[in-house]
C-alpha cells in the first residue's frame, strides 16, 4: 500500500505541475493571446468570444495569486472555460464528447499492440533462432520508424481511397444514430479497423523488443533453469516462470510509454477525421481556440495519470515484493 500511496502522491504533484503550467503559460508568454486571436480572426469572431478569452487569461486586475486560486477552484469544479471554436459550449463538454472515441481507439489499439507485441517478444526469446526472433525485430523496427500519421495517411490513401476497402473518415456511418444496435456497433468496428491497425503496427515493435530483451535476461535466471529441471510443461515455464518476471520491468516502462502512444493515436485520429480528442486538437489549433487546447492538454494529462495509477495497481498485483511494502 505504501507503494500505491507514494505513486498517488507523485501523480498529484504531476497533476498540479501541469495545472500550474497551464495557468502561467498564457500569462507569461509574449503578447496577449486574446489580441492575437482578434487580429487573426478579424470578422470571424464575435466580441463576446474575445471577452471570454480576456477573462480566462486574466486581464482582470486581481492579484495573480487570487486568479490562481480561482483557477484551481474552477478546474476542480470541472470548469475549463468556454470553447471558442464551438462557442458557447463549455470546453469540458466538448472534450467529453471526443473522449469516448479516443478511449475506444486508444483502448483497442493499446490492448492489442501490447498483447501481440509482448507475446511475440516472449516467443522470440524462447525459441532461439526461430522465425520470430530473426525476421521480426528488424522488420518491426523499420515499420516503427514511420511517423504514426504518415503510415495512417498511406493506409488511408491505398486501402480506403484507391481500393475502397475501408471508410474514408469518421467513426461511424453518417446518418446512423448512436445506439446499442448491431448495425451501429458494426459500423463503429468497421470504421475502427484502419486507425487501430496503423497505430498497432507502429507500436508493436517497441513492445516486442522491450519484452524480448528482458525475457533474454530472465531466461538466464536460476529459477527458470530450475523450472525446466522440474519437468514442468513448456507453457508453464515460459509464462509462469519466465514471462511473469520479465513483464515487471516492462510494466514500469509501459506507464511512461503511454503518453507517447496516446500522442500517436491523436495524430492518427486527425488523418482519419476520427472524432476524438486528436481531431479536436486540430480544430483548436486551426481556430486558435486556446481554451480548448489547454482543456485538452489537461484532460489528456489527467487520463494518462489515471491510466498510470491503474498500471501501478496491476504491478502491485503481479509483484509480491512491492505488495509487502
Amino acid at each position, binding site marked *: 500500500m505504501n507503494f500505491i500511496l*507514494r505513486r498517488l502522491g507523485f501523480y498529484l504533484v504531476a497533476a498540479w505541475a501541469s495545472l500550474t503550467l497551464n495557468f502561467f503559460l498564457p500569462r507569461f508568454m509574449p503578447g496577449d493571446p486574446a489580441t492575437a486571436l482578434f487580429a487573426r480572426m478579424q470578422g470571424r469572431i464575435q466580441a463576446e468570444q474575445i471577452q471570454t478569452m480576456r477573462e480566462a487569461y486574466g486581464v482582470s486586475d486581481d492579484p495573480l495569486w487570487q486568479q490562481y486560486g480561482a483557477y484551481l477552484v474552477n478546474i476542480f469544479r470541472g470548469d475549463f472555460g468556454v470553447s471558442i471554436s464551438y462557442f458557447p459550449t463549455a470546453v469540458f463538454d466538448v472534450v467529453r464528447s471526443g473522449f469516448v472515441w479516443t478511449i475506444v481507439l486508444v483502448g483497442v489499439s493499446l490492448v492489442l499492440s501490447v498483447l501481440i507485441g509482448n507475446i511475440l517478444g516472449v516467443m522470440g526469446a524462447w525459441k*532461439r533462432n526461430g522465425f520470430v526472433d530473426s525476421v521480426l525485430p528488424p522488420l518491426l523496427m523499420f515499420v516503427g520508424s514511420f511517423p504514426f500519421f*504518415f503510415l495512417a495517411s498511406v493506409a488511408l490513401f491505398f486501402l480506403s481511397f484507391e481500393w475502397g476497402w475501408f471508410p474514408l473518415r469518421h467513426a461511424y456511418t453518417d446518418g446512423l444514430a448512436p445506439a446499442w444496435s448491431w448495425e451501429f456497433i458494426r459500423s463503429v468496428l468497421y470504421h475502427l479497423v484502419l486507425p487501430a491497425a496503423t497505430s498497432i503496427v507502429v507500436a508493436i515493435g517497441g513492445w516486442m523488443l522491450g519484452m524480448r530483451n528482458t525475457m533474454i535476461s530472465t531466461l538466464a535466471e536460476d529459477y527458470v533453469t530450475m523450472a525446466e529441471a522440474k519437468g514442468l510443461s513448456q507453457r508453464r515455464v515460459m509464462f509462469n516462470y519466465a514471462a511473469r518476471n520479465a513483464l515487471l520491468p*516492462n510494466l514500469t*516502462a*509501459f*506507464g511512461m510509454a503511454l*503518453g507517447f502512444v496516446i500522442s500517436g493515436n491523436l495524430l492518427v485520429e486527425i488523418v482519419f477525421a476520427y472524432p476524438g480528442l486528436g481531431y479536436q486538437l*486540430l480544430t483548436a489549433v486551426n481556430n486558435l481556440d486556446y481554451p480548448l487546447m489547454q482543456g*485538452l492538454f489537461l484532460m489528456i494529462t489527467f487520463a494518462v495519470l489515471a491510466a498510470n495509477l491503474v498500471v501501478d495497481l496491476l504491478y502491485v498485483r503481479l509483484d509480491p515484493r512491492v505488495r509487502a511494502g
Partner: protein
Amino acid sequence: MSATNQTTAAVEVSPVGQATPVPAEAAFTGPRRRSGAWLTQLLGNRKAAFGGLILLAFAAVAIFAPALAPYDPTEFVGRPHRPPSSEFRLGTTGSGQDMLSQLIYGTRISLGAGVIVGVATTVIGALVGLAAGYFRGRVDDFLSLLTNVMLIIPGLPLLVVLAAFLPAGFWTTVMVLIVAGWAWPARVLRSQTLSLREKDFVSSALVSGEGSWRIMLREILPNMMSIVAAGMFGAIIYAIGAQAALEFLGLGNPSAISWGTILYWAGNNAGLLVGAWWTFVPAGLCIALVAFAFALVNYAIDEITNPRLRSQRETNLALRRHRRQLGVSRATPVLRSAGQHRAAGD
C-alpha cells in the same frame, strides 16, 4: 526517484518508443574503461554501418542541397499536382513547386532541427542526470521528481500548448522540443551515474580531492559515452518525429520548407484525395529512413554494450553452423559431430 524506479529494467522502452539500453548494472565492471572499445566495435557492426551509411547520405544531401536540387524549391515551376515525370522527378506540389527540390531542401531544416534538439536535450539531460546521480539525496529527489513529471506528461498535447502561444518559427519549434524532450536522457543517465558512482575509480578521485563537477565530467561521463550516444540518437529520432507532427498540425512555420511542412501542405491541398501520392509518400519515407538509421545504430550499441544481449548474439553466431541439427527443443542438444575436432586436440 524512488517513486518510479522500482525494478531496474535491462531495457526500457522510452516514451519515444525506442528501446534504449539501460544496463541494470554498469556495463563496465572493470576499474575504468574509456569510451574507445565500444566505438571500434560499432564501426565493425553491420547494422551500425548500414545505419551510418544512410545517415551520411542524408547529411550529404543537406549540405549540398543547392547543387542537388533541380529547381528553386519555393518557385512555382509547373502546374499543381503533376505526377512524376522526367521534368519533375517527384512531381509537383499542390501549388506547383518541384517536389524533389522541396524534399532536398527540407532535409536541411528537418535534420538540422533534429540534430540541434538531440544535442541540446542530451547535454541538459546529462547535466541533470549526472547531478542527480552524483549528489543523490535532496538534489536527486528534486531533479528526479522534475524528470519524472516531465516524462509522464503526454508529449504531443504539451508540445501543442507550448507552441501555440509562441510565434511560429524554426527556433520556436526547436525550443519547445527541447523543453519537452530533455527528461528521458536525464532519467537514463541518472541511473547509470548512480551505479558508476560506486566504482573504485570514483572513490579514488574523491579521495585525491578532485572537485565534484570535475569527477562527473572527467571520470563518470567518459565511462558512459555509449549510453550518452544512444540517448542522443534516441533524442534525434524523437525530435524529427515530433517536429514533423507539430508541422503537420500546422504549428510550424508553413512557409519554411521541411519534411513536416511538405506533409502539412499535402494534407491541406488535399493531395491525398486527388490521388497525388507523390506529395506525401517521399517525405514520410525520408522521416522513416532517418529514424530507422538512428534506430539501427542504437540497436547495434545495445548489442555491443549489453552483456546479456551480446552473449546471446555470440551464441547464435557460434551455433549457426549446427542450426539444422539443433531443432526447436530447449533440452541441451547432443551433438556428437561437434566434438569431432577433439581428436585433433588430444
